[in-house]
């Protein structure tokens, strides 16, 4: 495994997992290119961990096959797969010291002299001085790095990370995100990262697969997913979206824009940013990200440049974040619209109760099929824990 580190893509074809009558993962095709940092993102119970465990061999797929490069590994037990895992809460062996934890994989494969490799690996994760300590004597962040070292020392073709940063506090998590990214770039091994934290997925991964209810909702580069969500779940789960229920006034035609009406006004969006059918009179969900919207007091509405999408409304709430301010606005087009304004020149009239106009470049608007749950993927307080 050390010498044949040619890797290859990870390919899942028609892979699924059912427990009795419950389907954890619906038949799924997925290709993870060699050397990429790939994230499986979704809320708990969406099947992302099950998918990861099927790649590791810890879970047997009900249907489908797992390929590593050209090799079908579906029937191989985990200890025969050139794949290693960084477990949630690390699963370090409590009876072994750090050195022996890291050396475990090498020793099991009969490697004689492990000292040099273990030393180098511990240096890579900056834990050289801790070799003789037991796991419980280390902090969470240090344990996390040991778990990474213990997996990486085997030079796997693929490194699987199951919510590796879940147990760390926010500051340490940020630090470890950069650290993991650095290590991945340095070793060039394919990383498959499972997380429920959309920010973490977008920061670290080259490609993100958003999973929901045992299916992949959408797959793509973080910016692509963020700018062009194709479902309400993706629109709401990745960041925040304002979704407005609208009726199609002018469908896909000669013009490149679709025109819709919502709350008495008209809005435009580029036809190529709408995957849903647009028959005139039909319904459509129109989306725009909160940071794309500008906010002006109703008295200054005349100053808005022509050709921009406009929605009138009233501020119901504001929160000051230092770098920006979040406004919540009720409008005829929809209630609870969110706007993030940079705090460059603050308009003191923009207080709760003020009449305002929201305006944005139509190019930032996207259209979604109105047949979906508009609230899908919205994180509630209980979910966020």
């Amino acid at each position, binding site marked *: 495994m050390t010498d044949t580190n040619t890797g290859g893509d990870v390919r899942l074809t028609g892979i699924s997992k059912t427990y009795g009558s419950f389907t954890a993962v619906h038949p799924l095709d997925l290709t993870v290119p060699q050397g990429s940092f790939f994230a499986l993102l979704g809320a708990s119970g969406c099947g992302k961990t099950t998918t990861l465990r099927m790649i590791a061999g810890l879970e047997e797929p009900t249907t489908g096959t797992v390929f590593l490069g050209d090799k079908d590994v579906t029937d191989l037990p*985990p200890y025969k797969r050139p794949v290693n895992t960084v477990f*949630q809460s690390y699963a370090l062996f409590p009876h072994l010291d750090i050195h022996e934890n890291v050396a*475990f994989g090498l020793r099991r494969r009969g490697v004689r002299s492990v000292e040099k490799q273990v030393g180098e690996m511990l240096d890579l994760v900056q834990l050289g001085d801790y070799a003789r300590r037991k796991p419980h004597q280390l902090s969470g962040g240090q344990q996390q790095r040991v778990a990474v070292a213990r997996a990486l020392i085997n030079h796997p073709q693929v490194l699987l990370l199951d919510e590796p940063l879940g147990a760390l506090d926010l500051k340490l998590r940020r630090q470890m995100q950069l650290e993991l990214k650095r290590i991945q770039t340095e070793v060039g091994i394919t990383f498959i990262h499972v997380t429920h934290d959309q920010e973490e997925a977008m920061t670290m991964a080259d490609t993100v697969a958003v999973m929901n209810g045992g299916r992949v909702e959408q797959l793509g580069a973080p910016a692509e997913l963020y700018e062009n969500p194709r479902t309400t779940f993706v629109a709401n789960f990745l960041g925040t979206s304002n979704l407005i229920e609208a009726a199609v006034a002018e469908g896909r035609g000669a013009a490149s824009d679709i025109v819709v009406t919502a709350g008495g006004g008209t809005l435009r969006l580029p036809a190529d940013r709408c995957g849903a059918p647009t028959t005139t009179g039909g319904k459509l969900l129109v989306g725009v990200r909160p940071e794309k919207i500008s906010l002006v007091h109703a008295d200054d509405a005349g100053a808005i440049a022509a050709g921009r999408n406009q929605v009138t409304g009233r501020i119901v709430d504001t929160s000051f974040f230092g770098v920006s301010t979040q406004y919540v606005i009720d409008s005829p087009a929809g209630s609870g619209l969110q706007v993030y304004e940079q705090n460059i020149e603050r308009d003191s009239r923009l207080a709760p109760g003020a009449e305002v106009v929201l305006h944005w470049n139509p190019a930032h608007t996207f259209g979604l099929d109105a047949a979906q749950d508009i609230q899908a993927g919205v994180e509630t307080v209980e979910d966020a824990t």
Partner: protein
Amino acid sequence: MVRWIRRNLVVLAGLLTLAYLVLPNVIVMVFSFNKPAGRFNYTWREFSTDAWRDPCGVADLCGSLTLSLQIAAWATLGATVLGTMIAFALVRYRFRARGAVNSLIFLPMSMPEVVMAASLLTLFLNMGAELGFWTVLIAHIMFCLSFVVVAVKARVMSMDPRLEEAARDLYAGPAQTFLRVTLPIAAPGIAAGALLAFALSFDDFIITNFNAGSTVTFPMFVWGSAQRGTPVQINVIGTAMFVIAVLVVVAGQVAAGRRKRDTVR
């Protein structure tokens, strides 16, 4: 004075409890240095180390002690191996009658010992078994088993199943995973169960007395000799056992403390 008592009440209560626990042991030790006038070692006369210099001076005493140690060792081994396997089976596998086994395993603990002893004798006699070393050993393994199962089960249940997954992920096959990860982590529970089994077997009297036939274990010897007189050597053996046990515990703690100091530095 009242305030002083109030402030030190916890310490006082602790010391009194300690005295309550230690005093009987102290009596055993002190009277191992006695030189009784007659057959009975019940009143203090004068200091002497006679008994310590000749611990086997009483007929059959050391023979019964050796027998008890042998039975305890084998019973511990048998009960620990069987009990560990039962504990793993109960925690790890779902099989038919698992619930029944789970509760039946407590039967020997809850059954009055004297009833159990009499019934065992009935069983052995009906089977035509010859009473002696083997019947005693079988009985001891039986009643030690449940204690080992309870001790090991608690440990196995609290074990993170991901540790074994991690081992399998790191190229350890089933046998290696068990030897390198599962067993070492379960070891404290197994050791606790084994110690308990040894102690229970070594000083069991009731079940042994019913099923021993003509063989005489150490507790039976003490009981038998108490009818005619109590030799000081009994106290010597008791004290020696006590001191050895305490030394083992202290040595264990010192070793653990040193290991900790080394690693923390």
